[in-house]
């Protein structure tokens, strides 16, 4: 529920930026002098579009904040794994900071704060997604193995034999487990770079802006390459769901490239090198619903890629690593004989220990 609320919250936030509606309500934390929650629904729904977006964004933000607090209470009351606990703490801190940043953006009417606000949002979404993934694994009673499928191929079985009965499985696709993590980081950095472009101040020099666009385009190339490598690395994976998930990310990245091109067209028109080939006889319509949908969709799809990469990284490989980090290495890495277990390279894991010892 938190992930869904956050997704809607971020979509509203993206629309607020697209329509430059951040200052549609000049006061904070109230709305035109009213308590935020008591602002008349009729005025919200039937008022100006800018007001609908900004006030809706605030209500969703408050909902996400309350859900985070509720989640924290439940998590610490019912007990959860250390990783989930840490993530919930991070979520609460982030949601409070994010709310304050939103308020600061309005009170100071400052673009720098808006940029930071736009960077914290996707981070909170990633954390919320991670909590959902890890909680889901725990709910299924599956803390140490891939959640959806039993290992069935020979490589996987041998890998388990190799490390013995430890809390962590040894992924035979070690490289593949790191790739979605890198992809998630790259997708997040792309959202950060995109936020700098969307919130660029009008006094910025063209040369600086050109560099910012170049960085965003380089980031797009990096995300594309990483998603392609992820697909390649995950195709031998025994889980069909995992394989399809990686393909879905690749498809989303392709869609994102198209939306990025569309955002360019709706913002700057046909690039000069294309104008000789084709140019419309009519000018682009500024602030058209179609243009807003493409530009905002570019932000939302970027967020979805980030969420999907987090799921892939945690659900099939990275969750145990995260649990280990959360326990500061104190638990979960000890074999029954007290020796330290560590992740071995995939190639080393193929051979059972007894065979390796015999050589």
């Amino acid at each position, binding site marked *: 529920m938190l992930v869904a609320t956050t997704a809607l919250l971020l979509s509203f936030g993206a629309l607020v930026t697209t329509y*430059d509606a*951040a*200052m*549609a*309500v*000049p*006061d904070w*934390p*109230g709305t*035109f*002098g*009213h308590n935020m929650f008591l602002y008349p629904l009729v*005025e919200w729904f039937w*008022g*100006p579009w*800018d*007001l609908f977006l900004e006030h809706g964004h605030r209500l969703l933000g408050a909902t996400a904040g309350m859900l985070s607090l509720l989640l924290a209470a439940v998590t610490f009351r019912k007990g959860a794994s250390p990783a989930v606990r840490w993530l919930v703490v991070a979520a609460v801190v982030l949601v*409070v*900071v994010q709310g*304050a*940043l939103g*308020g*600061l953006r309005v*009170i*100071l*009417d*400052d*673009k*720098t*704060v808006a940029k*930071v606000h736009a960077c914290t949002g996707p981070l909170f979404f990633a954390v919320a997604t991670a909590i959902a993934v890890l909680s889901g694994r725990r709910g299924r009673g599956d803390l140490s193995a891939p959640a959806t499928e039993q290992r069935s191929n020979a490589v996987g079985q041998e890998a388990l034999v190799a490390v013995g009965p430890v809390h962590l499985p040894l992924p035979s696709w070690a490289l593949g487990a790191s790739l979605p993590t890198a992809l998630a980081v790259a997708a997040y950095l792309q959202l950060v770079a995109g936020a700098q472009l969307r919130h*660029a*101040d*009008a*006094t*910025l*020099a*063209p*040369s*600086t*802006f*050109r560099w910012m*666009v170049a960085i965003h385009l380089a980031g797009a190339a990096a995300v594309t390459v990483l998603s392609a490598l992820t697909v390649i690395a995950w195709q031998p994976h025994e889980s069909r769901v995992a394989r399809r998930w990686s393909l879905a990310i690749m498809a989303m990245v392709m869609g994102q490239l198209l939306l990025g091109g569309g955002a360019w067209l709706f*913002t*700057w*028109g046909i*690039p*000069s090198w294309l*104008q000789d080939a*084709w*140019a*419309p*006889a*009519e*000018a*682009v*319509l*500024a*602030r*058209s619903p179609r243009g807003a949908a493409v530009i905002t969709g570019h932000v939302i799809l970027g967020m979805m890629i980030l969420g999907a990469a987090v799921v892939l990284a945690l659900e099939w490989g990275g969750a145990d690593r995260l649990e280990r980090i959360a326990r500061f290495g104190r638990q979960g890495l000890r074999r029954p004989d007290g020796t330290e277990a560590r992740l071995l390279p995939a190639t080393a894991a193929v051979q059972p220990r007894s065979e390796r010892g015999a050589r």
Partner: protein
Amino acid sequence: MNTTTSADIRHTEGQRPAWSVKIVLALLVVLGGTGCGATPPAWFRLNMVEATKQKLTSDQERQVATLLAAMFGTPDDPVALPETGLDEAKLRLAAGPVRSDIVGRKNGLYREHCAHCHGVTGDALGPTAAFLNPYPRDYRPGIYKFKSTERADKPTHADMTRILKNGIPGTSMPSFALLSETQIDALVEYVKYLSIRGETELGLIRAYFELDDDAEGKLPETREFLVGEVLEPVAEKWKTAADALIPVPEMPADIDMVASIAKGRELFYGDKANCVKCHGPTAMGDGQANDYDDWNKTIVEWTKEVVGTDDKQWASRAHRVLDGDSLEPRTIPPRNLRRGIYRGGRRPLDLYYRIHAGINGAPMPAAKGTVPPEDIWHIVNYVQSLPYELDGELGADRPMVARDRF
């Protein structure tokens, strides 16, 4: 819609919970500590190309900036002297940062819709400017291409409104047809304000050239000089723009279109109109294509001057200005008339204006004086037929739209 007053808001702000203030302060400290300073208030950039070209000293540059601030205010707080003929209420709707007022009316329209390309100063140096081809318009010289007035005259309010509503096809200038009449009206007023400000700035910079020796390099700061001699001549041209409308004879209702197009074709390739010189024998813009428009020509010619000078210190300063305050000059290719894209408007009347007065700021010359008014209609008819022209010489043997053929 809202009965809440600003006093209510102030009252509510006074009751804001202490925790929110604390968090806000803590964040300020964090942001400050990480080097993320608050966005500085918007400011008008000085016309450094002209100032450096005229070899102004830094004191003189400061004087120009101060005088302009006194006469025109700042981007957040514009001032319209009565002599400008501008409506300050409209300017205030368009100026400043983007925000809604107490009744939910959007302010800061220029920065929301225009400044990212045209720049806060209207100097065509907005962040996105380098990506646009053609570059966005620099309002400061007060030169506008698409209008219903004679070549050297200013556009009318209606001309600028039409451009905002229709956009400029074939360029990055979009149509703002979804904005309200009031918003478009405010934006047009603000663009005029930036133009009058820019031309006044040019007037002030060039006035240093005519100073007497006893002026000690300082412009007189009297109302008589600043408003009477510099501002009013500029503003007067804008106020009288509607008096300079191009007279357009009626096109005969019973005109023989085939004969008119043939006559227009003859004029197009003839010596009088000589359209073929630039638009080329195929009318696809394959004639002379190495010329610049006035905005780019200024930079090209000044660059030549800088390269050829012996004053190394000035040249070094000029190079810095060229790097930071101008974009790489681009040539202006003549239009391909077979594509059916008309930047200044697709109405026959728009084409008549273009041919009659030429295009101010561009190499397109005026036919006025060389081609009789009624013959201009023939050229208009021929130009409008070009995207559909049947022409065996071009390798086409059947009529089809230009975009399919070319």
